């Protein structure tokens, strides 16, 4: 791969910034969701703590890419965040589904109203991205046995799958009350397919399609951000009752994740 500079930064610096941004978006939703549940479990503070560590480490590594110490810190922060996400997933699954009285017949209800099942894995993904970024900043051309661009395309495919499922569950809960709510399920799905294709059997056509779909996914993220903000206003009391509607309305960090995931793919396509 031949790293291409963009606006004065190298691709892995961009990925470090994207790592920080993704983590912040996830932390916002985690904080709101955990506050809604009144921090009933001490583990609910974990994403704030490990997330902050990852954000700081990523931004420092982006600012000083030549310092191996910061690189190492980013790697550790990444693994820590990834582990936290896995533990969080266990918590969400156990407390949100397993111990609930309704059993399997109520699974769909608990998926809609319990702790969002895939949300903690978003932190895991951010952590893994941090690890990949650290390797890249160290000058390595491959990670986890895959060439860098391929690793990124596969990463994007997997995280988009998770984002689509989670958005799907919650948009289903919202009864698709606005047709735009189908957008994050359709367009990113196509991007996912193109991403897998690019990882396994790249070609110029697939490359072009993937690029277009990534840009569209980016757009979906921006539109989604606007729609979720508007969604706050469609609740009773709108933005005036923000302290309630932030808890009950659409998650404000989530749409931005599509921007982040798409940006990673674009970095892999254009800058590596």
């Amino acid at each position, binding site marked *: 791969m031949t790293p291409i500079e963009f606006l004065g930064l190298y691709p892995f610096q961009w990925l470090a910034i994207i790592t920080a941004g993704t983590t912040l978006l996830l932390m916002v939703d985690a904080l709101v969701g955990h506050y809604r549940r009144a921090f009933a479990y001490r583990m609910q503070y974990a994403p704030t703590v490990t997330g902050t560590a990852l954000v700081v480490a990523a931004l420092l590594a982006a600012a000083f890419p030549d310092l191996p110490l910061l690189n190492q810190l980013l790697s550790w922060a990444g693994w820590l965040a990834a582990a936290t996400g896995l533990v969080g997933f266990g918590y969400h699954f156990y407390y949100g589904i397993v111990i609930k009285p309704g059993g399997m017949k109520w699974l769909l209800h608990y998926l809609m*109203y319990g702790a969002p099942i895939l949300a903690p894995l978003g932190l895991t993904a951010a952590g893994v991205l941090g690890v990949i970024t650290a390797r890249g900043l160290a000058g390595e051309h491959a990670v986890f046995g895959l060439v860098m661009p391929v690793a990124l395309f596969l990463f994007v495919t997997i995280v988009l799958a998770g984002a689509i499922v989670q958005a799907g569950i919650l948009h289903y809960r919202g*009864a698709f*009350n606005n047709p735009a709510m189908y957008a994050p399920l359709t367009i990113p799905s196509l991007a996912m397919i193109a991403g897998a294709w690019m990882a396994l059997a790249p070609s110029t056509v697939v490359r072009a399609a993937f690029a277009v779909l990534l840009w569209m996914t980016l757009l979906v993220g921006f539109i989604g951000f606007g729609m979720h903000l508007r969604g706050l206003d469609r609740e*009773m009391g709108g933005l005036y009752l923000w302290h309630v509607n932030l808890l009950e309305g659409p998650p404000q960090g989530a749409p931005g994740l599509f921007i982040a995931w798409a940006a990673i793919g674009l970095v892999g396509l254009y800058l590596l």
Partner: protein
Amino acid sequence: MTQQDQNMDGWSLSAPGIHGELVPMRDWSREEVDVCVVGAGAGGGVVGAKLAEAGFSVVILDAGPHWDPMNDFISDEHASTKLYWTDERITGGDNPVELGTNNSGRGVGGSTIHYSMVALRAHPDHFRRRTIEGAVENTDHRDWPLAFDDLEPYYEEVEEALQIAGPTFYPWGKPRRKRYPQREHELNASANVLVRGCAKLGIPVAPSPIATLSAPHEDRPPCVYRGFCNFGCTTNAKSSILVTYIPRAIRAGAEVRGNAMVARITHDSRGRATGVLHFRKGSDDLFQQRAKSVIVAGYAIESPRLLLNSSSSLFPQGLANSSGVVGKYFMVQSSEQVFAKFPERINQYKAPPPGGAITEHFNRTMPGVGFVGGYTIEVIGPHPVDFVAKMAAGRGLWGAELRREMFDYNHFSALGMVGTVMPNRKNEVKLHGTERDRYGLPVPHVIFSYHENDKRLIKHSIVKMKEILEAAGGTDVWSDHRTSHLLGCCRMGDDPADSVVNADCRAHDVPNLFICDGSVFPNSTGVNPSLTIQALAARTADRMRDMARRGELW
């Protein structure tokens, strides 16, 4: 838009909108309309709106005010008594029914303003009770003259119009062809009690389908879980008739006239209805609204009362009452409520009263129990004034002991049931011999006694609800008697000799008179009746439209 703006051709009135605004409305008072609907509730709102949308000229009258949800609904129990029928009625029999705030709404939207939004379809079996269960001594519980399948498309239609929020898989009744338009609500603490208890006992339990938005729809936001559903929804998330069918009716050119108590239905010498005479706000005189057809939708006390009050030389027993059955076969649904105390905070006043969970596991004729029919178990969440009255009545408690028990108000959780009641000719709504209301009209005298079957069913339900509450960790269980809903008195049937209306809700005796409310029920089903009333009204509107096209309506 000012009131009485005469320049808008024909649109010279205004009505409260649902966001505190005024909407323009037509004035049909000087004309003979196609349809005059008496009662702007579950039945009247649906049939009036659909006929207006089909191009009929429609006036919908209601005895009570046209509510403005943004300003008229008060977040206070006591101040909400204005939403109910508080004119005097006499109640008697062995088990006198509590009326007023228990089950009788008044005003545009009717009882859908204060009801608990439970939106259930009846089961196919409920329409064929007699065929399936055979005769039961001392009752006349009979088949409906129509089948579930006749009503199924209309259930779908009203569920879509009301955006019923229900689970993706609803385990009881005939399997659904379509998903509920919106998803079920999150469960509150009381509903979790029901789920816990049922899970422990192996009783199937599901999220409850209710007529409250769980997601934004058009100009209405989703529920914010105020818990004041029984006192008027200021959020507009509750899909009452007031915020769904009434705005449709007005937009389609209908006039919705509040504060218009109907005194009698007028008819001509051929025995065809010609309109109604009603009171208007600020006047003691009767006003005549001429109409080519009349639909009575006053619910199961006011509808028979109106027909009986409309007697004349041509109809000495009351309008459309050649069968003598108007006012007879009055039913309620038994609604015992069972309470228990829990170590955790329940805060029963939060979230919609039905809480989000329900079981219809016992809503069928069960073998070996000694009664036919069944009941649905739901969740309730009374506010303090309602709750203390129940506790005082249910336990005979008063004094220091009552006040101390009330300190634990936030730790109580309660279940309520809706149970089949047998139709009995002796249970009736008649005109009181001497009492008169403020309009000078004879007040209704409601006479009700439970049948042996009803009592056994109630006993069974209390045992079951107690088991469920205790399985969920509840202690100090007690129960209170209650009834809910009003049904019968103008029952439908194929034979004009023992029914008032046919399957199209058309009166046998008066071809341009229809009845669209719970009074047409020939048996009580085992589910809350509102959705069935609304579906019947939707079907009646279509039948009337078809009849008009064929020239058979007038």
